[in-house]
């Protein structure tokens, strides 16, 4: 358990047990009081340097990590691959080793290649947080999503989560499968057959969660407690996996109309950024059923908790 044995890095959710996740929630809960207080600054990570290395565009993840670090009084440095020595031909590993030598206490990495944080983690000494790697994982997003559900619904055990959209290229859905299953939820993937990561349930791995698959939106929503729509990733190889946006929208968009298939209690998640009108309608994302704003609000507390757990001196009791 991470309360007893310090976590060295956060590469994916499979490093965490249910108790670990609840421990992170408890941490985040305590930190929320700082966020809601009059002075949003505490000296918990004073003297620590957090470096965000983002080789892919990002707004919410980068800014929320940055804000989390700053609220905790860490010095936060943002590095993006454009404008860095990456453009001068320096290798990725040399860049991150340089950031370590310069004095980073922790590296937050976003990279377009799956596994990049694993490669970095085994080649440097300081902790690494995976802030999204290729199509592989986005563990902090999943912790935020779980925390949001935990706060607004309560018990996650037994809930049915439907993940709607391009799950084959989605790091969010892969980490969500691990995280929500660990907490006892059941996961259904719903997408065009070309975007369904169908091998994930064809395996001989004992502890890998079982996933249900469908390409029928009605079936997918009929028993949902939670509906997570994924961003339609035009920049990844989306061009060939469905005929055009119109057909996709007709079949898979979450709208007031398609939501009629879902039980009234079903709540809506989206990891952002949203393509409004493509995978989700604005009426839905802004509705009372939507948890999307809470997801963003909770992101800072979760990331603060992770920073303290990985590089801070405080424990849950001393914070």
């Amino acid at each position, binding site marked *: 358990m991470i309360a007893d044995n310090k976590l060295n890095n956060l590469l994916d959710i499979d490093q965490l047990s249910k108790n670990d996740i609840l421990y992170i929630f408890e941490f985040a809960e305590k930190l929320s009081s700082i966020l809601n207080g009059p002075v949003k600054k505490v000296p918990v990570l004073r003297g620590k340097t957090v470096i965000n290395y983002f080789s892919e565009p990002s707004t919410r993840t980068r800014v929320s990590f940055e804000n989390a670090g700053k609220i905790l009084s860490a010095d936060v440095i943002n590095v993006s691959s454009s404008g860095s020595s990456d453009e001068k031909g320096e290798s990725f590993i040399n860049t991150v080793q340089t950031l370590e030598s310069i004095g980073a206490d922790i590296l937050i990495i976003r990279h377009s290649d799956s596994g990049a944080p694993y490669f970095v983690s085994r080649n440097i000494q300081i902790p690494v947080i995976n802030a999204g790697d290729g199509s592989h994982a986005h563990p902090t997003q999943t912790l935020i999503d779980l925390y949001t559900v935990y706060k607004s619904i309560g018990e996650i055990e037994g809930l049915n989560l439907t993940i709607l959209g391009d799950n084959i290229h989605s790091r969010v859905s892969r980490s969500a499968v691990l995280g929500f299953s660990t907490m006892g939820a059941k996961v259904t993937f719903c997408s065009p057959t070309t975007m369904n990561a169908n*091998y994930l349930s064809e395996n001989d*791995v004992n502890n890998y969660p079982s996933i249900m698959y469908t390409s029928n939106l009605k079936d997918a929503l009929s028993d949902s407690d939670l509906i997570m729509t994924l961003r339609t990733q035009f920049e990844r190889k989306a061009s060939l996996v469905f005929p055009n946006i119109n057909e996709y929208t007709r079949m898979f968009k979450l709208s007031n109309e398609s939501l009629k298939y879902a039980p009234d209690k079903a709540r809506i998640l989206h990891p952002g950024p949203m393509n409004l009108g493509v995978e989700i309608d604005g009426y839905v994302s802004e509705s009372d059923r939507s948890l999307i704003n809470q997801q963003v609000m909770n992101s800072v507390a979760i990331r603060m908790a992770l920073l303290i757990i990985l590089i801070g001196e405080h424990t849950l009791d001393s914070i």
Partner: protein
Amino acid sequence: MKKIIKNGKVYDGISDKIKQQDVLITDGVITDVGNIDISDGDIEIIDASNYIVSPGFIDIHSHLREPGYEYKETIATGTRAASKGGFTTICAMPTTIPALDSKDSIDYFKDLCKQRSIIKVHPIGAVTINRKGKEIVEMQSLVDSGVIGFSDDGEPIHDSNIMRMSLEYSKMVSRPIMNHCDDRGINYRGEGVMNDGFLAQRLGCSGIPNAAEASMLSRDIFLTELTGGLYHACHISAAQSVDVLKIAKERGINYSAEVTPHHLTITEDFILGSDDQNREQISENAYNTFAKVFPPLRTKSDIQSLIEGINSDLISIIATDHAPHGYEDKMTTLNQADFGISNFETTLGSVLQLFYSKDIKLEKLLKCLTSNPAEFLGKKLGKLTKGYPADIVIIDLNKEWEVNISDFVSLGKNSPLEGTNFKGKILQTFVDGEIVYSDDKGHNG
């Protein structure tokens, strides 16, 4: 100058049985094999009691990287690594700069080999200019310069008309077209980095399905039937490909096929880390670039099919696809890393695992490394019999050793087998009767 290798367990490349015999060498040529009385006093005796004596290994598929990529490998280091692995003849793919696609580049390459190689090297010519898949090279003039076959290896021949015409042409020049089968359309337009399946999806990586290989192989096999051309399938990795070869054999289509030591022995799980293959907990050792190879490492059931392919003679050649790379080529993410494994120095250890596991007989393994590739080359090589060059290896089947990449003679330290315990090692390698490598003294020159 006479030498005799005494009392070895001799695999002669002709008989399917290993027998205790002596091998007499006179001026670099084998002059007698049998139980030989030595009355002549002026003879060097090499005692091979308890050891296997085999024709030197012949590799029809390797990358020497020179000219153009001398930081990955050179002819000097590559041929020394090969001789350490028991190879006395190797064939070099045209994946050089310039590509071996013209008489001039072949002549230049052969000239470099003459100066720098310590074993026999034969070039493989490109099928198309600069391996671009557009225009066929001057095949006859390349044959006249000494190429033993044609391949755009690493670049599958996609244009079916190019494939058809080069197969037609191959009949005239009497040398085969060696294709690397991979349909880029099926392989995510060439973006795949590992075997397709659960693990690829679990790791968020683009997978290369077996169908990418098997579908192009089927095209090639039926084009071979259509044209009667000379066809060789490079590094078969998929179970479905073995099924395609079965159909080819049933229909009486002439082809040859090779398999690599890694596709015969290790699985995609090596992507999880060389000594950490736990699918239930992905560790930080995952995305192991040393296990990135093209075609990709597959699964246990593919391995089983490949073994059956060898045992039923659908696949007759073991070739290394030795693909050395520099440090920075592999010290990166799985997506960015180059494909390939440095293989010369671990081939014997790898394939002997199949002998010890009773999957493939020793004689068969040796045949796939010696007389079968010799037959493919159409050269007087690969047999221990009167009149053949004394290209010979002495193998200690029982010697146990551990793979230590830093001991590699090859400049390519890119092997996923670091720390692997092998049983069976090359003791001595002779080329034309001269020792080029010995386990205790290293290289001679």
